[in-house]
């Protein structure tokens, strides 16, 4: 059933595009010109390769790099994170004192396998390490007061922190089920605008973009922080 559906849908698309016979594309409204290139983007022979080498968004005239650097870049990120009701802290070299202060009230926290263990040196509660083959169950995660992770990239302009499932960021579930997320952002990982952030990421990794804690505006449009994800987001900006 499904195979027939596949063939039929692809045939319908070809008909809809006015292609006849061998899949030749007959464009009747050549609106595929890409701004800034003067080129057209329709495939010569309908091959995937030609479709993808055709100019797309990457050549257009929007910004690919931001203008903020150094301290002004960090300040922009902080400003945007605060706007999204995240709590911001700064640490120089060693974040362990800040972390201890933030999670001190929880009797147990979870961390991903690759997190620098010295960062938890000041914490006296229980530490559960989530690692391949030793994943915590959902119920175990639900019993943790907080999760501490690093991050892959932070985008200043939008106040966005990206986790990429690496050993330092952990599985997606560990930053979702506990109610309190403490996330360490290294200053080297801060970029200015969205295109710079995307270019640093691996599409095949499970990616989570976080811009402030969970929020809803569904009731009379009044914003409520914290519906289903972690209700508290603490961000520690770590300078090296």
């Amino acid at each position, binding site marked *: 059933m499904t195979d027939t559906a596949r063939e039929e849908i692809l045939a319908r698309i070809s008909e809809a595009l006015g292609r006849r016979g061998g899949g030749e594309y007959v464009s009747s409204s050549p609106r595929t010109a890409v701004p800034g290139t003067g080129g057209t983007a329709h495939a010569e022979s309908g091959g995937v390769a030609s479709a993808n080498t055709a100019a797309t968004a990457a050549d257009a005239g929007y910004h690919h790099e931001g203008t903020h650097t150094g301290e002004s870049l960090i300040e922009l990120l902080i400003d945007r994170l605060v706007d999204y009701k995240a709590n911001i802290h700064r640490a120089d070299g060693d974040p362990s004192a800040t972390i201890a202060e933030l999670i001190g009230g929880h009797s147990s926290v979870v961390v991903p396998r690759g997190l620098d263990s010295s960062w938890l040196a000041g914490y006296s509660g229980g530490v559960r390490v989530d690692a*391949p083959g030793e994943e915590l169950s959902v119920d175990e995660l639900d019993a943790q007061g907080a999760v501490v992770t690093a991050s892959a990239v932070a985008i200043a302009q939008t106040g966005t922190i990206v986790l990429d499932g690496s050993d330092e960021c952990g599985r997606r579930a560990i930053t979702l089920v506990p109610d309190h997320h403490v996330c360490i952002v290294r200053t080297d990982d801060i970029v200015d605008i*969205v295109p710079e952030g995307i270019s640093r990421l691996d599409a095949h990794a499970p990616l989570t973009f976080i811009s402030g804690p969970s929020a809803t505006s569904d009731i009379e449009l009044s914003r409520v922080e914290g519906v289903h994800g972690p209700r508290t987001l603490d961000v520690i900006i770590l300078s090296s």
Partner: protein
Amino acid sequence: MTFLGMPLLPSKRRSDLPGGQGNIIEAEAFPEASHEHLSNQQLRNNIGHATSTIRSKRAEVVSELDDWEALRDAGEATKNEVMANLPEYLAQFEEAFTAAGGIIHWARDADEANAIVTELIEDNAPMLETGRREVIKVKSMATQEIGLNEHLEAEGIDAFETDLAELIVQLGEDKPSHILVPAIHRNRDEIREIFMDKMPDAGELTNEPAVLAEAARRHLRHKFLTTKVAISGANFGIAETGTLGVVESEGNGRMCLTLPETLITVMGIEKLLPKFADLEVFLQLLPRSSTGERMNPYTSFWTGKSEGDGPQNVHLVLLDNGRTRALADEHGRTALNCIRCSACMNVCPVYERTGGHAYGSTYPGPIGAILSPLLTGVQEQGNGSLPYASSLCGACYDVCPVKINIPEILVHLRGEDVKANHSPVSSQLDTALTGASWMMGDGKRMAAAERGLPLAHKVTSGEQINALPGIASAWTSSRDIPALPEKSFRQLWAEEEANDRDEEGQR
């Protein structure tokens, strides 16, 4: 300014590709359906408040980007490129998604998609003591379009909406009225009553939004942690890598996409982007146009399955349901470029007064007025009145992040409708339109109403109108209404048709 009264030349090639089914068909013609909603003061107040608030937030965050127009151009070009090469991008996506351990299913229409999803649930969700199965759902336009929840219900499967607004709508046995804030027509007291009535464990609640949100959290928490199968839509599919993405706020999306063993995603075939890098454009266009935020709180991307992280049984249903029919319409196909941001409904004066229910479709507002009839065809189904649900003011085109020329497509579809449904004998719709006094009878709002044209043209002596009295004054203070044409659209159309016939006769 383009003279919007002039029809585009109708397409010579009349597609007979099958139209879509499901919740995209008007039960009642728009002019009639809107009557009832117009007199609902709460609806008008709530929608007015919501649209004006989101509108100003959007304007503010858009003005922060000095390359906004370039981003829109890039968005438009990318989507046009996808549509022009859709078979290649679909094949490429399929290969990449499958290589990453995902499984793809193709569905020609709503029935087929519903059947595929049902079978997958039966294979993967356990039968409970009640004799029924349960799944959790992320808010998704595609599954609303195909009427999945209703279908599953009949098949013995309970689908729990987990987005707060969708939950309110579902528990209230109601319909969404806006694609972004579906429960915006409800106030906090009503929501409190729905929750206390329908959530067995809710207890006594106040009407504070924070209290109500907390009740929803408690209500759904256990479901998130224990349900085996989740259903989602997708905002984007990346052809190059086979990646899917969902954009959300509450974290219910992350819960559904991450915790269950099986994930079933339903996505329209038009949702693809060529490359992962294209997200650099769309992740700027979508949140700013939609909720007026620089970025929405959560965005998730997954590519097939990730070993040890998230669902290990990952399915995708690729849905046609009239999309190929829309694609065949050369003047309307750009409606498929829509990324469902809802900006067009927040600026539409007609939507603001009628709300979303009047459109009778999953897709309300300006985009719904073109997308629904394109998916079903104006001829086959009763969607012929939707293209008239517009003042053609052009505000929707101005805000659309992918630059869909909605007014132009509306005019084109009106032409299609006239051709298909209105000659030579007057139809039921004509009668309905004659009775559409709510809009056309009020000269302040709709001076260009067809019937009044010849007279209005004389009164205004063919000059531009730059000030209207009364409630319309705010509107004309920021824009001019073009001089009124001498003839109505219908008259012009009939004449064009007659000329065509004459010319053909002479050949």
